[in-house]
């Protein structure tokens, strides 16, 4: 469902806008950017590991 929500949010943004996506599922850090690329929705700019909480990541995506 993360990719669904990411996609829906990206549809609301303008070209070159940046979207931050927080994930706590390791496989999604790969699948979400891959699906975004495959559908020419967005490109991955950065992945940050969020250490303050239990294992989580912040993806930064630029809308294409």
């Amino acid at each position, binding site marked *: *469902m993360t*990719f*669904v*929500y990411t*996609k*829906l949010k990206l*549809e*609301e*943004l*303008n070209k070159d806008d940046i979207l931050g996506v927080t994930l706590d599922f390791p496989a999604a850090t790969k699948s979400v950017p891959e*699906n975004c690329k*495959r*559908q020419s929705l967005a490109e991955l700019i950065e992945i940050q590991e969020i250490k303050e909480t239990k294992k989580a990541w912040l993806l930064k995506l630029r809308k294409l």
Partner: protein
Amino acid sequence: MEKMNLTEEQIERYSRQIVLKEVGGVGQEKLLSSRVSLIGLGALGSPVAYYLAAAGIGHLNIIDYDSVEISNLHRQVLHFTNDINTKKTESAIEKLTILNPDCTIEINSELFSPDNSKETLRDSDFVIEGSNNIPTKMLVNDTCINLKIPFTIAGVLRFHGEIMTIIPEEKTTCYRCVFDDISDASKGMSCSEAGVIGLISGVLGCIEANEAIKHILNIGDLIKNKILYIDLLKNKFDSIDVYRNENCRACGEHPENLVENYQYGIEDILK
């Protein structure tokens, strides 16, 4: 960009198709705001109704005058044993509203005829013809050409079926371009005489529903200027080119006022 208007429940319900590149949230909202008319709730209409309701077509206008009979049940999967003698429209609305409350169902239990065809189909984004007789198919053709509404027509018999899609604004080949003379239509074989395997209706009905979705979302290729012929005994899926008749009485350069004047003989077929 505009904010999506999908609820959380809708996002979850339609998630598996929203994920598709060709659909997305934008496409899902298009489906939810579209209106499709379906003539016939029998063998072809059953899968059409199920899959369009499930996909989230916002408004489904379903038309059938008939009642459920036991011999329908092997192929008309919208109807169940306890629906025998119930109007097909009543049987259908019961199932479809349970399947998807997002889909507003409008029922019309009158015989689809030249007297009401324009009023019935007006304001449709797409029309799907799923009747079991040629005169009705021809009336749908002529009405949709007149109203400039895109539509698809299919037919099944034994183990095979055919389908074509017509886009009036693009002047694609219409049903009458190919099959103008229906004076012998009453002599053609019906399912009760020739027989039909139920699932061929499922295949063709699904393709009809798919044509509607593709048109609404402006994706993929429609079955325009061709007839897709399917033979499930021989596993053949053939596409046959068909050409527009510039003198066609429905869609040609000088169309006639067919809905008002042509003798379709629909009441005779149903006797």
